[in-house]
């Protein structure tokens, strides 16, 4: 896409092989089923970056700790019911995404009954506003990369939730289209369309805002 985006991506970690991850995960789950606390902690350490990034991307920064915490608790409390037909990671992401969707619904209901605009004061600190506030703190002092990242976040937040969720599951959670379709209860074709559409919108907007030459 761009040089700027290239620079931002330079810090991404290289994932371990799928087989290594699978073996490690299986061993941890076996121990967790025996209520081994160290195993629980290791699972948290292993997946908290992905879970927090998912929540951050779908809901916003202010929800990360609370929703991530709840996702792990729910996953561990229902670990006895976890069927090994998919990875525990996928199971955890399913719980996380469901929590995010619940929160989005709550936010939508809250917005429907939000009368504060009538009085000219909006106490609801929505994600979009927070991001805009962050941008307006001190535009001069932010580094170029930081500005780029803020723009990426802004444009992600401007996507409709269904597109944002789909592209998050694909690009951040690294799930296959089959997994995305299963978790969102949609067809594989619809999952592909949503991700493709989200990419297209982001590409167009980022190209415009970051002055990328075509």
């Amino acid at each position, binding site marked *: 896409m761009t040089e700027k985006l290239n620079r931002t*991506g330079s810090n*991404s970690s290289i994932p371990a092989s799928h087989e290594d991850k699978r073996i490690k995960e299986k061993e941890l789950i076996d121990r967790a089923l025996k209520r081994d606390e160290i195993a629980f902690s290791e699972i948290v350490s292993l997946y*908290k970056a992905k879970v*927090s990034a998912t929540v951050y*991307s779908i809901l916003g920064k202010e929800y990360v700790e609370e929703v991530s915490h709840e996702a792990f608790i729910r996953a561990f409390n229902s670990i006895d019911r976890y069927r090994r037909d998919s990875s525990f990671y996928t199971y955890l992401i399913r719980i996380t995404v469901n929590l995010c969707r619940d929160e989005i619904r709550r936010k939508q209901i809250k917005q429907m009954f939000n009368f504060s605009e009538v009085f000219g004061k909006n106490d609801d600190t929505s994600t979009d506003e927070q991001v805009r506030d962050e941008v307006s703190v001190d535009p001069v002092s932010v580094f170029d990369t930081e500005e780029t990242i803020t723009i990426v976040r802004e444009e992600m937040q401007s996507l409709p939730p269904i597109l944002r969720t789909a592209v998050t599951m694909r690009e*951040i959670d690294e799930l296959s289209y089959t997994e995305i379709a299963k978790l969102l209860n949609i067809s594989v074709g619809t999952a592909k369309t949503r991700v493709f559409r989200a990419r297209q919108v982001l590409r167009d907007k980022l190209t415009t805002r970051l002055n990328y030459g075509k």
Partner: protein
Amino acid sequence: MENSCHYSQYADGFVHGELNDSEIKEFSNHLSTCSFCGAEVQEIANLRDSLNFAYQFPLDERFNYNVLRSLHQREQIKPIREIKIAFEDILISLATMVAIAILGIQLFGAPKVASVEMAGRLTNIERTSVEQTSLSNDQVLEIVMRSK
């Protein structure tokens, strides 16, 4: 640069490591000659990396501790809940037994002839007539004693 290429459908899977060995080889060869697919691969990879970078949110060891603490708290509640359920079960069982006993007494009634001794003092005709009455044992006994 071309405007489209049918190979570009592999770009997504290539970036996400979902192609098999032969597909990787074929697409890699194609990439060396197709600028459209090259740009497509780069854009998908850049977007993926950008999003992963943009949404980093460091959760320290305190987060692990808080999760474990919450698990502990919820597990401590569990036995109390189980004891409560067991106690309720016992109460329900006792209440059911009492209800069945009362129902049984109501349906079949208390024997009109209360004791063997008393029964022994009644003739068969007396016994039949006693069983057909709705008098209490004491009342029946009084009537019988008077008649004798």
